[in-house]
């Protein structure tokens, strides 16, 4: 049985004069201990997916329809009280920017202890001991002293380690990490990712890693979803998606990776920008940027269906397979 099962999740934003659809009928599953990457450009709906899983959307966003079954229970229908018992306890979240995530006027200790005591009957001292253990697990030196410090006294990398420790405090079944290293120095990014991978593997914790970085996904996850303009356009094992992408957008993303370009050559960017949610074009949302687009693509929204090792939402995927990729022709 899967740990998480998302079915037809639709999220909307009620704006002043219109309602826009931010997530359009998203479905996916996550097995226990599985690591899933969600990839896409900013605005594709990755972060909104992450917050929806915890039912943590803030106004004007709201879940319009669909189910989010976590361990068999629907997060969408849960009472506030039931949600509280899930959040931070069985499902934890790591936010994007560690500089603004921790409360500036509370010590690290206070913020860790309160999390433990919100879910378990523990004395402050017992909670502190657990906090110290978890801080050791994320390789924080002299954890006892850290508990007395305020966030501003610590570096960004240190803070993100602490946030990871907080996520692990109650041994959750699932951690949602929303671009956990984008706000950090490049040198620290790899360390943090390695740490997360190690902890997830050793504790058998499920991970949903939201990122725009395909390279990170390939190191960290077993399966990958690619999102574009509020829809999943391709999903499958990470290896298949990296080695043999089917959707022209995914192909474009992978071709744009620096590793795919010879030194001295220009990076191959996908032309154009992702549409804003208020102005999604008819048909396949990617069609204005797609070199293979046909009239069908401009009028009908492609359904996601199995093709080879992956599921993909593209009208032209059959044709793409029979024709050799154009870049290779030109090269």
């Amino acid at each position, binding site marked *: 049985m899967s740990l998480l099962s998302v079915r037809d999740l639709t999220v909307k*934003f009620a*704006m*002043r004069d219109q309602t826009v659809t931010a997530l359009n009928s998203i479905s996916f599953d996550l097995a226990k201990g599985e690591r899933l990457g969600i990839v896409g450009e900013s605005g594709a709906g990755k972060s909104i997916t992450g917050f929806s899983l915890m039912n943590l959307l803030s*106004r*004007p966003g709201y879940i319009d329809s669909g189910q989010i079954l976590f361990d068999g229970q629907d997060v969408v229908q849960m009472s506030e009280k039931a949600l509280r018992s899930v959040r931070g306890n069985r499902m934890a979240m790591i936010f994007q920017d560690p500089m603004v995530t921790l409360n500036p006027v509370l010590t690290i200790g206070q913020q860790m202890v309160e999390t433990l005591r919100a879910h378990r009957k523990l004395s402050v001292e017992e909670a502190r001991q657990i906090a110290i253990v978890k801080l050791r697990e994320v390789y924080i030196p002299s954890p006892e002293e850290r508990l007395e410090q305020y966030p501003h006294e610590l570096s960004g990398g240190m803070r993100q380690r602490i946030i990871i420790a907080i996520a692990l405090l109650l041994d959750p079944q699932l951690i949602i990490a929303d671009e956990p290293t984008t706000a950090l120095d490049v040198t620290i990014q790899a360390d943090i990712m390695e740490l997360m991978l190690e902890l997830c593997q050793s504790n058998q914790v499920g991970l949903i890693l939201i990122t725009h970085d395909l390279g990170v996904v390939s190191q960290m996850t077993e399966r990958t979803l690619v999102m574009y303009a509020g829809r999943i356009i391709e999903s499958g094992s990470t290896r298949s998606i990296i080695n043999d992408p089917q959707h022209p957008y995914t192909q474009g993303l992978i071709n744009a990776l620096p590793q795919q370009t010879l030194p001295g050559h220009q990076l191959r960017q996908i032309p154009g920008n992702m549409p804003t949610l208020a102005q999604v074009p008819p048909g396949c949302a990617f069609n204005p940027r797609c070199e293979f687009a046909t009239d069908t693509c401009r009028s009908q929204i492609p359904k996601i269906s199995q093709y080879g090792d992956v599921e993909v939402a593209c009208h032209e995927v059959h044709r793409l397979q029979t024709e050799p990729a154009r870049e290779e022709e030109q090269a």
Partner: protein
Amino acid sequence: MSDLSHAPAPSRLQKVMDSTMMYSFRRNPVAVASLAVFLVIAVLSFLAPLIAPYDPYDPASIDLMNSEYPPAWVNGALPEFVLGTDDQGRDLLSTILYGTRLSIIIGLCAVALQAFLGITIGLVAGYVGGRTDSLLMRMADIQLSFSTLMVAIIFLAVTQALFGSETFNRYAVFFLIAVIGVAEWPQYARTVRATVLAEKKKEYIDSARVLGFGPLRIMIRHILPNSLSPIFVISTVQVANAIISEASLSFLGLGMPPSQPSLGSLISAGFDYIYSGSWWITVIPGIVLVVLVLVINLLGDWVRDVLNPKLYKG
């Protein structure tokens, strides 16, 4: 506020006026009603010499025998005095109209003075920077830590004692404008300075400098327009505050004299008669004052919500 509905760029105030502002205005009944009430009060009071039944400044038209008649809807009223008369026998309606005009004029002029001083100092502090900046801002801090009212009371008290009440009364309007105008400049200075500092970093200021434009032109043509919406927001609230300050000072006898009453001095004069039952001399000008200030504050709230500028806090 949602993350997705950004406030319009403050730099094009005119554009905002044409579109979003008018749209939001028409959809906000409180703002429409406030503006309507404000305009009615303002127009009536500025037309006071034409529409007021009596001239409260003309001793010939005042008869002490007429004092303390109640408003028309109360027993014992005289029909020619719709809102009754005050302790000196002046027609209350006429006196209120003239007094309101005086209050509005003092409020507007004082705010104009504040804005002029504050904007100038703010521009200089932000543009010149360095020691000048820290000195000016330190002065602003200290000035702000002493309340306007306190400074005004002491200044006017000393002035009054120095010149004697006769001279003081003759120039009271100017003293009031000067003291309310000078005491509140830091509000503007801090906001303008913050915009200057933000704008100074941007490239177009460098290019303007490279093109050889002088600092004065850069400040007035390029930087000042970006401060317009916070200045506008501050000004609305400041007019309301200035009117309250003027009324408070006049109430204490440190402002407009009873012979040339503003709303504050009228309330003050009536206060002595409240125990004897002549409540209207105090209450009616009081209501006019509150309504006037209230509608300005309501307009200020609305302006702030629409323009939503980053105001200097603290």
